[in-house]
């Protein structure tokens, strides 16, 4: 238990660091100096000690509860990852994060957050490729527990070589959840900060913590499921590399319109479904 708590604290700080690196890389590509890469940690610490309150227009219980739920689900996801639990559960936590986005946006009563929430509803198409990814991984390895998949990879080959489209799907998921990315319509600048505009001060700090946990868990799952278990130092380096590659894409692509976001994700879903069917037919015969 104490080990998990230490890991949790580490994950929060490392996740925040990844977010900082993300901002720095984007800034450098765009020829700006950018903030120092520990900026997000400083941000979170500063927000934690700022005065905060609940907007008068908000649905008050919901406004507070949704922040705690956000931290709750990603802590639970980290725990499931830590004990090598079911990939399906990670998938479920990822889907439930959607509810956090809706809830954060809808509970405050502000039109900006509301539009963020509405856009979050639209981007629901992003989840279907993930389901295909889970199915494809199951078809290859015959198990859904993360430790089982890692064991299979240690005995055979890394899945990224033989199931590339599935890996791309999970990568797209990470990309679509990254800040400033082509799919990040839910926190686009015309909505101020999108769905979490009205969560400030302490609430913002807590949401920052939840989102850093989310980044940490998603990238870790990506590495373990598609590359395999690595020594801890190499693992951290690969995590940073994955984050930097995401940052490159975010820096060089414009943000899509909400409907085109959905369209691209839907088309990709179609492609991955086709791929899933082919894998299934090959595996059966």
């Amino acid at each position: 238990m104490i080990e998990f708590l230490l890991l949790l604290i580490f994950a929060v700080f490392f996740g925040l660091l990844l977010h900082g690196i993300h901002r720095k890389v984007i800034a450098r590509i765009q020829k700006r100096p950018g903030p120092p890469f520990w900026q997000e940690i400083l941000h979170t610490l500063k927000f934690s000690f700022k005065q905060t309150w609940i907007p008068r227009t908000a649905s008050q219980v919901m406004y507070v509860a949704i922040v705690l739920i956000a931290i709750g689900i990603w802590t639970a996801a980290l725990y499931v990852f830590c004990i090598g639990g079911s990939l399906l559960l990670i998938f479920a936590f990822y889907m439930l994060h959607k509810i956090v986005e809706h809830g954060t946006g809808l509970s405050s009563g502000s039109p900006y957050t509301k539009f963020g929430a509405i856009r979050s509803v639209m981007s629901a198409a992003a989840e279907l490729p993930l389901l295909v990814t889970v199915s494809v991984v199951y078809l290859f390895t015959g198990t859904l527990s993360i430790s089982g998949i890692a064991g299979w990879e240690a005995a055979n080959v890394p899945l990224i070589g033989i199931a590339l489209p599935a890996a791309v799907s999970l990568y797209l998921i990470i990309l679509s959840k990254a800040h400033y990315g082509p799919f990040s319509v839910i926190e686009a600048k015309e909505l101020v900060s999108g769905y979490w505009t009205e969560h400030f001060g302490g609430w913002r700090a807590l949401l920052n913590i939840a989102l850093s946990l989310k980044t940490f868990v998603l990238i870790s799952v990506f590495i373990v499921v598609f590359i395999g278990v690595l020594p801890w130092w190499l693992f951290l380096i690969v995590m940073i590399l994955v984050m930097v590659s995401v940052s490159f894409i975010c820096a060089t692509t414009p943000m899509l319109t909400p409907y085109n976001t959905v369209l691209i994700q839907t088309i990709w879903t179609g492609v991955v479904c086709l791929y899933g069917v082919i894998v299934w037919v090959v595996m059966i015969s």
Partner: protein
Amino acid sequence: MMESILVTIPFGDMIHYLSGYTGVLFGFAAVFVLLAVISLPEKPVEIVFGTDGYSLKETPVDLAKFQRFMAIACGIATIGAIVTGDIFNFTLFAAFIGVLNIGIVAAVKNKHVLSAAFSYGLVVMMGTVPLFAGAAIIAATTGTLSIWELAAAGGVPVIAKLLLLIGVLGEGMAPFYIGKAEITRASGAPYILMIHVSSLLLFLRVVEILLTV
């Protein structure tokens, strides 16, 4: 691929159960039912486009009460869909969630919301056809509707699984996003949120069923 079972509640031919996976979903749904019970609705601010003007909109009390009733019922139906161990029972719960989702927004006086809710209502009605057909084909080809027996015996035809999936997508309207996005414009936050909670959890549950049987 049956996970270890934590709790079983037998009701005649139907054995309701919780595994680790459905237990998580159950907890999540329970939290949102509780939130729908205790939290008051938001008071959305409407901005007047192109100006600095804004207006505060209060949800009328009778509407809020009705929405709360529907949202709580929807949460309970979601819990039902999560714990049930019978395919046909699951399809009924799915249809129930579909009806309640329309109910949550049906009383909102907004033309866009209503027309989105109507289109959604049509999809919900259509969705019952593949749902029931899927369940019936499973019963005819395997001779049972119990998820336990199906997990042990297998042999569910792919078409039945596909029908179940498309049926649930219709009831929860998962990829048919536009209707749900329009519905979200309605005011009354914790209750509107239940639409998404129920459809996402329903989807997660059907994924588990399809991988199990």
